[in-house]
């Protein structure tokens, strides 16, 4: 097996039980990591360990199991916070990036956005960083405006600067596009947005799993990401926010856990971040996410990134030899995440995905929850291959062979 020589690929692959399975009698080549990643045994073990040894509710039960569960849950919060350059007090556990942006919409937006305000997002966003702001704008009589893109799939900073002159209330931007792979300079964007008086929201769903992220250095007001795209379980993610903002905001999910005192006519709120964690929290998956963070930390995020850059570099070179192959997004691998969106002549991505599946190769096909971007690209859909730590050059070769087969079937 050809190695990127950045990480020990055989050792890593042995940690992922699912990679041993076959699909249609072929070795599974999993290249749908931007949608969700596979889980190492260490994460699976953490979940099984919780449920078989110390399953209990957190924060209220004073018995041994309750104390152990609470300690593990809070230790996980601390780990995840440290992993992204934050502190536990500023990290709210949520279901995922979508819940995080919706939390901002309700808990911050309802209180702070007024009629006539301008909200800004970009044309390269996932629907989870567009639709909440559309709904917020509609309910408040505000206007949602979009930063445009340059032909190479990077943000048009001139259009961003022009929108800043309208004194937007909020600027929401992705750290890394799930379609184009474009890595945005979110530190610079947040600094400019703050100078214009805007509150900033960064979608980190495709950055935190793939590269070192330091939210303190980025300086965003809100930063959201999902656990299941970073080797962790589904149903858990985080919203990292400045403590002062969290304290000023009203609760999102109200009920148990998030209160301090409840009277018949009013209630007072628990301290942050618990104020935003109403109801019984997702204890097991939070602990599983902590195990995923341990796993990634042991590999080193700089190495994870370098591994993906090498795969990306190799893939862009070898795949561009295919007849009819068209790739979207920046050509410079230093400026893109491990995501390749492409089309092969007039073969529809769904047909391509079906043919590749027969070869054991799992890719994504469709609009990738980014329809405004598809319209900008003037395509109905694209195919997308995306990498993580367990992918190798062999996986890229398998993708290429599958695409060659598709090309032959469709007589490209």
């Amino acid at each position, binding site marked *: 097996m050809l190695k990127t020589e950045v990480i020990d690929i055989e050792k890593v692959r042995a940690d992922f039980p699912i990679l041993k399975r076959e699909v249609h009698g072929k070795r599974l080549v999993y290249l749908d990591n931007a949608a969700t990643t596979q889980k190492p045994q260490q994460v699976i073990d953490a979940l099984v360990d919780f449920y078989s040894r110390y399953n209990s509710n957190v924060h209220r039960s004073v018995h041994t199991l309750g104390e152990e569960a609470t300690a593990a849950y809070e230790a996980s919060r601390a780990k995840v916070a440290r992993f992204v350059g934050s502190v536990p007090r500023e990290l709210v556990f949520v279901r995922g990036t979508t819940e995080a942006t919706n939390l901002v919409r309700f808990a911050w937006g309802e209180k702070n956005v007024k009629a006539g305000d301008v909200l800004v997002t970009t044309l390269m966003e996932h629907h989870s960083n567009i639709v909440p702001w559309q709904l917020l704008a509609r309910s408040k009589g505000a206007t949602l405006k979009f930063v445009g893109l340059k032909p190479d799939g990077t943000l048009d900073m001139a259009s961003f600067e022009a929108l800043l002159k309208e004194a937007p209330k909020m600027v929401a931007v992705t750290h890394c596009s799930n379609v184009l792979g474009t890595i945005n300079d979110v530190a610079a964007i947040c600094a400019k947005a703050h100078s214009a008086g805007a509150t900033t929201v960064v979608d980190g769903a495709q950055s935190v799993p793939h590269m070192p992220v330091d939210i303190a250095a980025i300086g965003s007001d809100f930063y959201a990401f999902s656990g299941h795209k970073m080797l962790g379980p589904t149903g858990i993610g985080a919203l990292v926010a400045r403590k002062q903002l969290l304290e000023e905001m009203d609760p999102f999910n109200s009920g148990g856990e998030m209160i301090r005192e409840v009277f018949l006519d009013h209630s007072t709120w628990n301290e942050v971040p618990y104020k935003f964690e109403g109801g019984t929290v997702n204890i097991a998956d939070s602990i599983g996410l902590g195990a995923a963070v341990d796993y990634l930390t042991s590999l080193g995020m700089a190495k994870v990134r370098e591994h993906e850059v090498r795969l990306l570099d190799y893939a862009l070179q070898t795949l561009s030899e295919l007849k009819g192959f068209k790739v979207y997004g920046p050509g410079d691998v230093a400026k893109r995440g491990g995501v390749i969106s492409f089309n092969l002549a007039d073969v529809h991505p769904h047909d391509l995905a079906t043919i590749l599946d027969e070869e054991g190769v799992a890719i994504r096909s469709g*609009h990738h929850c980014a329809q405004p971007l598809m319209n900008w690209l003037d395509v*109905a*859909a694209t195919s997308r291959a995306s990498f993580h730590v367990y992918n190798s050059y062999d996986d890229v070769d398998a993708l290429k062979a599958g695409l060659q087969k598709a090309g032959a*079937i*469709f007589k490209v």
Partner: protein
Amino acid sequence: MSSADIYKELILDYYRNPKNFGKLEKFDIDARDTNPLCGDELEMQIRVGEGRKIEEIKFTGKGCAISQASASMLTELAKGKPLDWVKQLSKEDVFKMLGNPDLGPSRVKCALLGMKVLKIGVYGYLGAQYEDPDPTL
């Protein structure tokens, strides 16, 4: 499933050179639907003739080979048939028309999008509501 089995010459031919592709100037039925899963889009227009027969039928759309070929072949099959024929049309008929390819659950939706649009249009014209038998399929 075998992709060579699915993507027969016939399907590819209809995908690249669809029959009855386009719009009608005069029509009595105009129906459209999308497959949100993959973004396939389809619109069908029908002119109803004497004896409530499908006198003219055309479609436009964009999507995968299976959805577009299936829609095109269906328009050929439907032309000249009475509207009641559309009510009798079953998914088995569509599979048979396509040569009974072995499709997975998500691709079955692509194959049946044409039939769905046809039924939405014709049922609406007849004053009835077409209910997708299993929208979660």
